[in-house]
């Protein structure tokens, strides 16, 4: 008893230090998460007290409904395209803008500006630019005699998802560039100088020295990007609302439509749970892979 009292006297301060974090986690993370999983077993319109237990029915719906399967596939395509673009372009921009000089500084700022813009604003901006009847791009093409290239990029099911990918990559490439630039400064200069002395040209330095050296940065960006992709809602919603006809529907836009337009909160909660499980699984896989891959 005395020993336990002594242990408490010695450790209570530690508990007090972690208490705010634990309470914050419990209230703002754990409870909503558990509540979301709980709701996913019910039929509920999200408004009233009428809530009906349906067991696994919402889960069966998700795995048999063509809209869910379509949105899942689109989310996968969106993730692969947008992450490849933003990491690839971000790396190349970072490499090309390394070093001093006013022009480089200005370009670095310009490329980073989209990151600080509100995605909704960017979405509206590109809606106007890509509009096929009176949009800025069409007007420009017409002005330079290339009006025949005008195309309903957001209205054509074949191009809508690609446009959403490009706009999203446009926003986040600057972020990847900034992280890569920061990481490049930590690469030992003597390694690069040694490679140069050994006769490596610039391309070889970039792809044989820098690229492997930045492996931890690639993993960090990949994890952040995957989570970001799974959370992306504003850009596709503002640009296409998941259309036309589901062509650019992601799991997030489908979740919104299911919960707020169809008043099926149980199914929406189920989709939220699905997204959480996918994000958690992918993050664990990536963390383990990155841990094994440390150089």
């Amino acid at each position, binding site marked *: 008893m005395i020993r336990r009292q002594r242990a408490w006297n010695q450790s209570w301060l530690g508990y007090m230090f972690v208490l705010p974090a634990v309470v914050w986690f419990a209230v703002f993370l754990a409870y909503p998460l558990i509540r979301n999983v709980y709701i996913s077993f019910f039929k509920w319109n999200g408004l009233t007290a009428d809530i009906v237990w349906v067991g696994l029915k919402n889960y069966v719906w998700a795995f048999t409904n063509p809209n869910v399967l379509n949105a899942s596939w689109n989310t996968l395509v969106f993730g692969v395209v947008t992450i490849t673009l933003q990491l690839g372009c971000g790396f190349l921009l970072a490499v090309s803008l390394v070093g001093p000089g006013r022009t480089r500084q200005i370009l670095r700022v310009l490329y980073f500006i989209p990151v600080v813009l509100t995605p909704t604003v960017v979405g509206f901006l590109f809606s106007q630019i890509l509009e*096929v009847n009176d949009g800025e791009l069409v007007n420009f093409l017409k002005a330079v005699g290339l009006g025949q290239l005008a195309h309903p990029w957001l209205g054509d*099911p074949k191009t809508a998802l690609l446009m959403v990918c490009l706009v999203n990559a446009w926003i986040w490439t600057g972020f990847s560039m900034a992280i890569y630039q920061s990481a490049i400064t930590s690469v030992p200069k003597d390694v690069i100088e040694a490679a140069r002395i050994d006769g490596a040209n610039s391309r070889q330095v970039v792809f044989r020295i820098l690229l492997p050296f930045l492996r931890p940065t690639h993993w960090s960006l990949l994890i952040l990007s995957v989570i970001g992709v799974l959370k992306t809602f504003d850009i596709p919603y503002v640009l296409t609302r998941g*259309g036309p006809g589901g062509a650019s529907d992601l799991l997030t836009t489908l979740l919104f439509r299911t919960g707020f337009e169809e008043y*099926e909160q149980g199914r929406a909660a189920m989709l939220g749970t699905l997204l959480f499980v996918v994000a958690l699984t992918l993050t664990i896989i990536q963390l383990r892979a990155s841990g094994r891959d440390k150089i």
Partner: protein
Amino acid sequence: MSELSRRAIALGGALACAMSLAACGGDSTPETPGASGASPANDAGEPITITYESWGPTQESMDAVIDAFQAANPGVTVQASLLPYADYITALKTELASGTGPDVFEIQAGGALKEFQSLLTPVAEPVQEILGQDITQVYKQSALDQVSIDGVAYGLPNGFSSAGMLWVNNSILDEQGIAVPTSYDELVAACKKLREAGIVPVAIGAKDDWMLIDIFTSMSNAIAPGEQYAAQDSGGKWTTDGLIKTFDAFATMFKDGVAMDGATGAMTYSDTYDLYADGKAAFFTNGSWNQDMYVGAKDRIGAFKSSVILMPTISGAAPVTAGIGGIYAVNKNSANPEAALKLAYFMSAGQGAQIMIDGNLNFAVTVADITPSGELSEDAAATRAELTDQLNNNLAGYREVPDAGVKTALGQELIKLAAGTTDGKAAAEAVQAAADDQ
């Protein structure tokens, strides 16, 4: 860091955490604030504030309504918040789900009324008790039907509208030597000529799927009369030959180049409204509420000659559908239900209704007709006469899809048809599947 300061930080953190939790825990005072967060009304006549949220009317009309209501009800302040429909309904759902929300708000008839039903105050008795009015005597029965479930009125109707028509820019047609189309083939030919001249043919903001649903409902009433209503109301199927033919005719309209390019992409209702008002589109699919252009955008629409015609389909001109513009509902949790009900009635049938009809030229839901008090332009008067005639003599039925899930599925399938990624049979089966799922 000293032991004392470490302890102080730890205790401070725990205290802050406890305080934040207390803040999350809600009000512990005996008098909880009302739905609006305003001071509750009391018999002493102390000033009260009530809140109103909706997607309409325009801010200008709303300001005029508030001024008139506050003048008629001293001590009552109205705080209004207006948002685009999609944003509004999202915000409203969140507010109501958390037990708060505005004192008075607007919802659409049909599926939304069913979903919100248990959060709304039945209005017949309080209107009788507080205002001394019998709603069955005040309102047209067709309007009351749309605010009622099982004979109980859960709100007061707002403005009657007809839908599924084609607005015409006659000046563009005259310049291009095109006659106003009276058949589907003439419409296709006119649109082809307009496209060749680089002019937007029929403006459709298909990103807002309700525009497509309005067109489809009008078309189904021409091609397969009654079948859509049977599917919606009385166990009929969406997969009848007539409705499949309607779905196919709808898709053909887009294949034939009647609709503007990119209708399914970036274009919303507001975008197409501007295209037409700015004189850039020859036609515009819209309802009678489009008359508000003659007030709100009179300088723009006054620059060209305009009119309205029935939508030509492969089975002749489509009859109109009609419905109320919305339902003024009183929050069941309102702390000021009497003032809230007065505002709802004021906007639905009182002086507020007159102000709004002056602003949007809509049709009254009341038995006693309320007509615009200002002078109408020649085009506005002619259009209003045509719309009135169609409402009185060529009305096929109501314009809302009663079930939210079916409405979403129908909207999605119509967008797919417009984009050419499905066919009539598959679309009909998908909508039927959604209906079976409810």
